[in-house]
């Protein structure tokens, strides 16, 4: 296997032109390394490790052994070839030690990236020969998973005489209503007229809560009685917005667990009502996700995406100690960008998503 590996090791670093567009801005990152991160984002994630180790066993473990010790060759030989090669590479090139990789992997898991994805990311970073340090390599791999979002992003109407529509969805207690309050404030401050639709007709006092936010930022407000059909509220809200030439309609919806199919059907109906009332409007559907959510976040996002077609994510409660690492798995699987992060309870505490800062926070 040495004969087979030798040419690979001497192989020249592929030089790819710098095509990175959104700020990655990590000072420790070399340009060549950035380029390969772009490359990596373009190919199948699983294709990468096997390209480096062509004869890797098909059942090579995705997760490195936690009790590996660097440099113990005789023991290493008995273990999987991948582990052996990277340890050897560590010896030859004095790259990051196995303990470094393990601690980086633990940081990812502690940040809710997930055991499987953390293992994959570290494995991928490990396969790189140019890693200046374990953390830097992993940072790049993580950044490559995120989908860029323009910080100036805002919802746009399909036609000049139509309102732009934002539908806010998510499970219970993620902060949908509060996020709407903040979004309304933001768009009002930018000079837009905003109408809030109280389509959470289920939770006790949800309508009152939204009305208070509406008053605070000077929005128009459409509501029905508690228990009314939420789709009817959305329909009326769009009607009112068209008649009054409002710029943006933001619809609040009741929190619902993704496992309750009748409630998911109700949500699908709201989406259909928007499409029927404003054909071709392509509403923005923002999935509100609590940063403290663990691995279940992916299952949630998947079902909501299947039901109403998510166009963006708002990651709330990022001012807590939670890191929101489940976002990596969601973006990797669904290719829906994070638009905003919620960082507090005040009206101004909603910021455009900054991928570099987000990745850095995992290692803080």
């Amino acid at each position, binding site marked *: 296997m040495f004969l087979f590996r030798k040419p690979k090791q001497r192989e020249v670093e592929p030089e790819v032109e710098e095509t990175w567009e959104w700020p990655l801005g990590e000072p420790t990152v070399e340009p060549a390394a950035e380029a390969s991160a772009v490359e990596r984002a373009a190919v199948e994630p699983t294709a990468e490790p096997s390209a480096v180790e062509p004869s890797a066993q098909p059942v090579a*473990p995705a*997760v490195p*052994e*936690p009790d590996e010790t660097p440099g113990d060759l005789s023991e290493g030989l008995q273990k999987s070839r991948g582990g052996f090669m990277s340890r050897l590479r560590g010896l030859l090139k004095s790259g990051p030690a196995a303990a470094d990789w393990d601690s980086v992997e*633990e940081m990812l*898991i*502690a*940040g*809710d990236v*997930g*055991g*499987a994805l953390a*293992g994959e990311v570290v494995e991928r970073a490990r396969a790189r020969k140019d890693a200046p340090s374990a953390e830097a390599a992993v940072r790049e791999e993580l950044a490559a998973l995120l989908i860029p979002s323009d910080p100036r992003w805002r919802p746009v109407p399909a036609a000049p005489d139509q309102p732009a529509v934002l539908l806010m969805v998510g*499970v*219970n*207690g*993620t*902060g949908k209503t*509060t996020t709407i*309050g903040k979004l309304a404030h933001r768009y009002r401050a930018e000079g837009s007229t905003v109408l809030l639709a109280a389509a959470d007709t*289920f*939770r*006790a*006092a*949800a309508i*009152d*809560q939204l*009305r*208070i*936010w509406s008053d605070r930022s000077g929005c128009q407000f459409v509501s029905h009685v*508690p228990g009314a059909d939420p789709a009817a509220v959305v329909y009326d809200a769009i009607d009112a917005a068209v008649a009054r030439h409002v710029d943006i309609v933001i619809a609040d919806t009741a929190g619902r*667990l*993704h*496992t*309750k*199919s*009748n409630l998911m*059907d109700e949500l699908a109906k709201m989406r259909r009502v928007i499409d029927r009332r404003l054909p071709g409007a392509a509403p923005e559907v923002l999935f509100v996700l*609590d940063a*403290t*959510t*663990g*691995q*279940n*976040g992916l*299952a*949630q996002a998947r079902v909501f995406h299947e039901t109403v077609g998510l166009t963006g994510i708002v990651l709330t*409660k990022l*001012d*807590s*100690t*939670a*890191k929101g*690492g*489940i976002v990596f798995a969601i973006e990797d699987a669904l290719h829906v960008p994070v638009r905003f992060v919620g960082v507090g*309870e005040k009206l101004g505490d909603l910021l455009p998503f900054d991928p570099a800062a987000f990745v850095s926070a995992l290692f803080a």
Partner: protein
Amino acid sequence: MFDALSERLRKTLGALTGRGRVSEADVDAAMREVRLALLEADVNFKVVKDFVARVRQRSTGAEILESLTAGQQVVKIVNEELVALLSAGDRTFHMTGNPSVVVLVGLQGSGKTTSAAKLARLMVKQGRRPIMVAADPYRPAAADQLQTLGKSLDVPVFRAATGTTVLAIAQGGLEAARKQVRDTVIIDTAGRLTVDEPLMKEIADLTAAIKPAETLLVVDAMTGQEAVHVAEAFAAAVPVTGLVLTKIDGDARGGAALSISAVTGLPVKFLGTGEKTDALEPFHPDRLAGRILGMGDVLTLIERAQETYDEKQTARMTEKLRKNSFTLEDMLEQMEQVQKMGPMGQLMEMIPGMGGMAKQAQAAVDRGDLKRVQAIIRSMTPQERRDPNVLNGSRRRRIAQGSGTRLQDVNQVVKQFTELQKMMKQMSGGRFPRRIPGMFGQG
């Protein structure tokens, strides 16, 4: 989706049973599966590390390695260790003092207000006279929410004018309880982040002043790795006596509860199992362990069945099955019984290996499939119900019209019933059917 751990272990270790012996490397592979499964269930990674080490130690024992069913043995050890961790602390709900005071604390959106209402309902059911106190002056309309819930339960809610301090609200609540002769005070506090020092001090002062019998930390079952830090921070600020694990009716595995119990020793006292105010259940460690492992929750199912079925009915049904005289009428009765037991999806989830069918079953209920089947049977004459063979075209058309369904729906019900009958014949003959006919197929 997440494969049940037992399934994954069977794959890892099961193939080796022929050799009759499991090597060290096989145990390593199995432990990797255990580790990934626990991480997937949001168990804290440090807890996972200790846990896996302990399971490995027990699994490498000689009798395990030479066992023919090593996979099952490892699952058993994992299960035992999970139950041991989840059994931490005293799970009794203490109602001492007059009035007896319960304070609910937690992060924003964990479900404190809903849990307060559920607890109030439970207290009423136990013959107590609760009052709820809205001590959340921050979230807009939080007090309104509690008041609406209180109204629906016929439980009074104490609230104060805006600007009142939280401590003053709580004391006002205690005062109101004495005046209205209420023996239980449930205080709903605002959601707060553990890093918010002024707010953490606020509840610390609150509990120090009113000395509640129970201070429950409300934790969302979907919480990730942070659960441990959150619990530690709250336990450091206030004398937390236990947890309420909410939103367990989703498909989150609830590993957060395991992490918290393992690290802080706090017991889970209640589970929130739905949006309605009656959806609060006592906690059973073995059942959550089964859920984390993806092994189903047969015990809860049996318990619910016992609550719903009486012995006579069961005996009568067994007799019918034995004599193979199961009719459409019996099927209707069975469906009504099962529906009394609770949401179909939840029921299915409790049966090992049926987790996948749970969604299908719930979808069938949500679509109204069961209702439709019931309507069809109810539109039949007693003779038709006893003997579906008399159902000719004209009768079927009449039934379709009577039940507001289509002819093909009626045909399908009849077909499903005949298949079910066949299956039961096989079962009573001692043979087990290859497959269960598509009871939840799209109608």
